[in-house]
């Protein structure tokens, strides 16, 4: 476990020793900030229109209007940005041969996979941390539901975890970082949008399957503040599966 943690620490700090981490974080905070200000303006606008209409004003909620929409958009930004962060995790080690250091150290392949994954998660945590000022703003000037805030952060973390686990696996599949990026992005986007098709499908086992595979559905339900075990299990299953697949892939690197 110490091995995995020190690999994770090295990975996260390596991201911030190169422009990659800073550019990705800048992009995230910039676009995230744009969405947040947009939502605040929109909320304020709707709020002003609802003055004098108590029923409408009652339905207007900062939780739904701002927090839920914000995290839904942040998830989408993460889907674009995280593949660029995860693409180098193992591919770069293979290209610059530093993978030999890991393979000849007394840590198993799983610790290598886990360490790389946690290294990516470290970056995701910094990303999540960069949204804390938005929440501070909402608490200072409004009355958000803390349950919904927590559920959204948990959902966002799990979503990032899924993309990062997928990205770690793709990064282990190739020495070419661009290929790893494309694979992660395509895979993540497919998971995200697969739910769209279900509305045109007949009720069947396939529909249930596709619906339950769609990241969007699970993320949405968490966004509403509902921490259902099925959603948590969905994300954890994906993370666990890709971690296992990555460790198998790292083990296979010893047999080339």
């Amino acid at each position: 476990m110490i091995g995995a943690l020190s690999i994770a620490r090295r990975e996260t700090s390596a991201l911030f020793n190169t422009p990659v981490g800073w550019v990705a974080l800048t992009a995230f905070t910039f676009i995230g900030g744009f969405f947040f200000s947009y939502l605040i303006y929109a909320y304020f606008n709707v709020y002003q229109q609802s003055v004098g209409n108590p029923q409408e004003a009652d339905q207007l909620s900062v939780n739904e209007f701002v927090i839920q929409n914000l995290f839904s958009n942040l998830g989408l930004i993460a889907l674009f940005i995280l593949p660029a962060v995860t693409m180098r995790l193992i591919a770069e080690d293979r290209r610059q041969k530093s993978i030999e250091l890991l393979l000849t150290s007394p840590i198993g392949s799983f610790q290598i996979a886990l360490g790389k994954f946690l290294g990516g998660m470290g970056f995701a945590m910094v990303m999540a941390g960069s949204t804390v000022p938005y929440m501070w703003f909402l608490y200072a000037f409004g009355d958000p539901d803390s349950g919904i805030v927590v559920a959204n952060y948990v959902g966002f973390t799990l979503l990032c975890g899924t993309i990062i686990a997928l990205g770690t696996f793709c990064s282990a599949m190739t020495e070419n970082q661009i290929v790893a990026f494309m694979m992660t992005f395509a895979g993540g986007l497919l998971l995200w949008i697969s739910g769209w098709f279900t509305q045109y499908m007949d009720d069947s086992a396939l529909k249930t399957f596709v619906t339950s595979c769609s990241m969007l559905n699970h993320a949405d339900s968490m966004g509403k503040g509902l921490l259902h075990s099925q959603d948590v299990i969905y994300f954890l299953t994906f993370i666990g599966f890709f971690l296992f697949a990555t460790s198998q892939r790292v083990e296979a690197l010893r047999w080339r």
Partner: protein
Amino acid sequence: MIEVSGLTKSYGDTLALSDVSFTVKKGEVVGFLGQNGAGKSTTMRIIAGSLGASAGTAKVDGVDVAENPAKVQRILGYAPETPPLYGNMTVGDYVRFAATIKGVTDIDAATKMALGRVGLESVAHRIIDNLSKGYRQRVGLAQALVHDPKVLVLDEPTSGLDPAQRIEIKNLIQSLSEGDDRTVMLSTHVLAEIEAICNRVIIIHKGKIVAQSDLATLSGGADKKVHLELRRPEGAMEAMRRVAGVTSVEHDGVKLVVTGERDVREAVAAAAIPFGLLSMQGQSLEDTYIQLTTRGTA
């Protein structure tokens, strides 16, 4: 300390190693010699546990690498030909990282020891990418040393270095093997290094072991050849032929090559002095090496 038996490795259709067996005893410094592509790196990677063998076993201190890689890796330091470096880390951070993942308990002390051993204290705060090739090679060695391993496997530690750096690394390896009773296996294609550092040589050619013996035996050669360089070679061939025990004398264009039925070096030297003896060399490791690796072993 290292026992390799029947090691075979194929990459697809290419057979990289075929039935390689040898042993390295505790405290020995063994040179692993062979042309590029002979299978040196493949063998060393298998011993270090970063590559699996198609058949055969490699044991270090009695432990099978394939069965319990972590146990072997705790007592084995491996420096691949391309140092496995993270270029944007500082030397100190990198060695600390290596110490941590190798399970060292006192990381500060181990880092300090490794940096001191390879003479990197003065550049500990520098970024690895900005170092010269010689320093980078040393960082690669520091990584292999940081957990104070009983066995060191070094793959071409001097490749691509200039002569001065070469000597530094050579001295460093010598200091590592002496005193600590460390077992060292190093590969190179620079014969002079093997002659200077190693007490035993294993020669590999096209994936097969073609010779393994003490340096003295190997370079002594069975045919007792002596190469002479003379200031006044006129008439020397005749004189050499008269020396007791000499079976043939040839002139290879530069030197006289005297072959005897036994060790004739002393008598030949005495006979050569009147002809202005400039240099004299016994059968060199190079001759043996060239003989072994050019006779077209399939």
